[in-house]
């Protein structure tokens, strides 16, 4: 089960960017390009490659380095010259990493990047709570946050699982222990009671 665990780790490392890094998924899919079927119309190769990555990953890719405000509206063809070399570095590193992955790791990574909560259903859920319609990017943000949440819980649960010397298909008790641990760390659903700190 070692490879399983390693796979989990490598998949995690690159889709859960640390808060401090500006991670960049731009270069990725030189390898996975062939697999990405949801391509948009291609007006220029460079722009379309980015767009294709973005739509295929369902907006799971992170932002590239220069802030969007610095770019002119129609001048996306000049993007290549304007981007700092940091991007090229990242792309190169990504390619190296991808070429070093095993089949199973690649498969897992691809599923990790592609999986997402459907925006429509999230929006529907939020609408039923608020009673009014929610703006589109709210649903996008919420879907993204929810995915990060699942990632955090699953990672922690895998930790718990390993610590207890058990094997992967995660059991409810691993998940519950993971939730218990994470509760103290971050904003976590706590609809049952209010924590009384001092008494």
């Amino acid at each position, binding site marked *: 089960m070692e490879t*399983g*665990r390693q*796979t*989990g*780790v490598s*998949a995690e490392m690159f889709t*859960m*960017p*640390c*808060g*401090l890094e500006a*991670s960049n998924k731009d270069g990725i899919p030189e390898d996975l390009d062939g697999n990405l079927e949801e391509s948009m119309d291609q*007006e220029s190769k460079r722009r379309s490659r*980015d*767009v294709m990555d*973005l739509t295929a990953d369902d*907006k799971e890719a*992170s*932002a590239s380095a220069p*802030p*969007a405000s610095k770019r002119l*509206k*129609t001048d*996306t063809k000049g993007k290549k010259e304007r981007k700092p070399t940091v991007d090229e570095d990242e792309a190169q590193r990504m390619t190296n990493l991808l070429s070093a992955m095993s089949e199973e790791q690649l498969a*897992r990574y691809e599923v*990790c*990047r*592609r*999986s997402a*909560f459907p925006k429509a*259903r999230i929006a529907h*859920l939020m609408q039923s*709570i608020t009673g*009014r319609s*929610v*703006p589109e*990017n709210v649903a*996008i*943000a919420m879907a*993204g*946050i*929810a*995915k990060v949440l*699942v*990632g*955090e*819980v*699953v*990672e922690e649960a*895998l930790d718990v699982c390993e610590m207890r010397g058990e094997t*992967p*298909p*995660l059991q*409810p008790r691993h*998940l519950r222990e993971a*939730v218990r641990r994470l509760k103290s760390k*971050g*904003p976590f*659903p706590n*609809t049952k009671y209010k924590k009384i700190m001092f008494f």
Partner: protein
Amino acid sequence: MADEEEDPTFEEENEEIGGCEEGGQGKRKRLFSKELRCMMYGFGDDQNPYTESVDILEDLVIDFITEMTHKVMSIGRQGRVQVEDIVFLIRKDPRKFARVKDLLTMNKELKRARKAFDEANYGS
């Protein structure tokens, strides 16, 4: 497989408990089962995760969204959900915060690219 045996009993239990509650999770149709399975595999779990595990995660996600939505409605513009408020609430958690920022930037870029493409098409 183990989950095939345990599944019916688990569902029954759930339904009993959830039956008298308003909006009890046991009775609610499973919203995110397929996506959650893929996600769990992607994050390191087995290729076929247990159904109970998927259920627990789904409940967690729905709880999270619900609570988040309620909080957001109470800050900023009352009764409305806006992106800035979400970003504000999430600020303490580095991963989620970074992720939201990235997604929103990506979205803007995409829109810009699409718009530019449309204009280019229209012109030529």
